[in-house]
């Protein structure tokens, strides 16, 4: 591809989707130390579609909450602002893409479920946040497939088929950058905390994570497990390589695989709660 076209492609994907105004509004509120979660909840509750979706997500089997969350205030208190922000962003971005890439949505939900199960197994306190990190990790791919010209997008998919390489390798070859780079831009643009941005940026190289190595390692393994299980599509049919460093950090045993797969399974059967 000639450099001018390459530059056009990069500008195109860098032109990130606009932040829903409500997120900016909430962000501003949260920056002030005197804001209470009740005030934030009030702003979210003003948007009925958003609050309904958020509550549905919070109560879905992907999060595996032991009790029902019935109000936005309760969701904020129990799940925390970062989780809520992650849910708002995911909803908005996937809405924008209108499921043009069937399989990515399922891959994201499956990764969220797998990340939750792994985090709980490790006794992590921030299970929901790690689950949202799983949900967000491939958001760069969504943006890529929405923003790029169809011919460029098709060229990436074509290369995966033709050369039997991963989607990430094909991205690199066609665009000179990958979805993790776009994930980083998205995270910076949306001022996501490192606990969410590092899994988005480093889920293929978890040893590079600095602030959130454990969260990144969990999402790395969740991605591998859900692809191995064969649920949704990350753009190619292959299980990605496992990072030895991440595996060591997690401290799991190969005997855990069966139990992890067993716990993930129920959440994968019914996705209609998310529609």
């Amino acid at each position, binding site marked *: 591809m000639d450099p001018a076209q390459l530059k056009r492609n990069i500008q195109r994907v860098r032109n990130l989707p606009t932040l829903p105004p409500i997120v900016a509004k909430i962000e501003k509120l949260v920056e002030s130390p005197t804001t209470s979660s009740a005030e934030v909840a009030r702003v979210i509750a003003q948007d009925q579609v958003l609050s309904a979706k958020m509550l549905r997500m919070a109560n879905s089997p992907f999060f595996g909450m032991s009790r029902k969350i019935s109000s936005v205030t309760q969701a904020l208190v129990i799940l925390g602002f970062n989780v809520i922000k992650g849910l708002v962003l995911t909803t908005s971005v996937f809405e924008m893409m*209108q*499921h043009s890439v*069937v399989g990515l*949505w*399922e891959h994201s939900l499956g990764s969220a479920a797998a990340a939750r199960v792994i985090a709980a197994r490790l006794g992590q306190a921030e299970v929901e946040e790690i689950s949202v990190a799983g949900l967000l990790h491939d958001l760069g791919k969504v943006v890529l497939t929405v923003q790029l010209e169809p011919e460029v997008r098709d060229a990436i998919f074509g290369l995966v088929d033709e050369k039997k390489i*991963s989607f990430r390798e094909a991205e690199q070859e066609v665009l000179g950058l990958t979805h993790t780079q776009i994930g980083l831009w998205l995270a910076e643009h949306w001022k996501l905390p490192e606990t969410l941005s590092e899994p988005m940026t480093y889920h293929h190289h978890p040893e590079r994570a600095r602030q959130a190595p454990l969260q990144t390692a969990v999402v790395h393994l969740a991605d*591998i*497990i859900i*692809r*191995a*299980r*064969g649920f*949704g599509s990350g753009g190619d*049919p*292959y*299980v*990605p*390589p*496992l990072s030895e460093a991440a*595996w060591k950090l997690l401290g799991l045993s*190969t005997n855990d*695989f*069966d139990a992890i*797969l*067993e716990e993930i*399974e129920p959440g*994968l*059967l*019914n*996705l*209609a*709660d998310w*529609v």
Partner: protein
Amino acid sequence: MIEKIPLDEARPGMILAQQLQRDDGLLLCQKGAELTENLLRVLTRLGFETIQIEVGQTETPAEQAARLARDEAEIEARFVRVASDPILAELKRALIQRLRRGVHGPGPA
């Protein structure tokens, strides 16, 4: 056996014998899912008129063997690029064992 029934005769607890998708291809639920009240509400809202449900045993032993072979080959294919990793080999083994026990993925248990 698989039976096609009108949606208004479907009840929670029945087992779905087909994968359901929205018009735009979005996956709603997998084959083998149990019908829930919420799912039935969603299907009604989306305008589904009939669905296929499981009644009794559906597969002959030969069909079952063919399905297992097919699914196993699919798992093998996903792992071709990581074939030398001993840890991922264990993950593959766990998946194949689950498949043989009938607890993995869609399809009747």
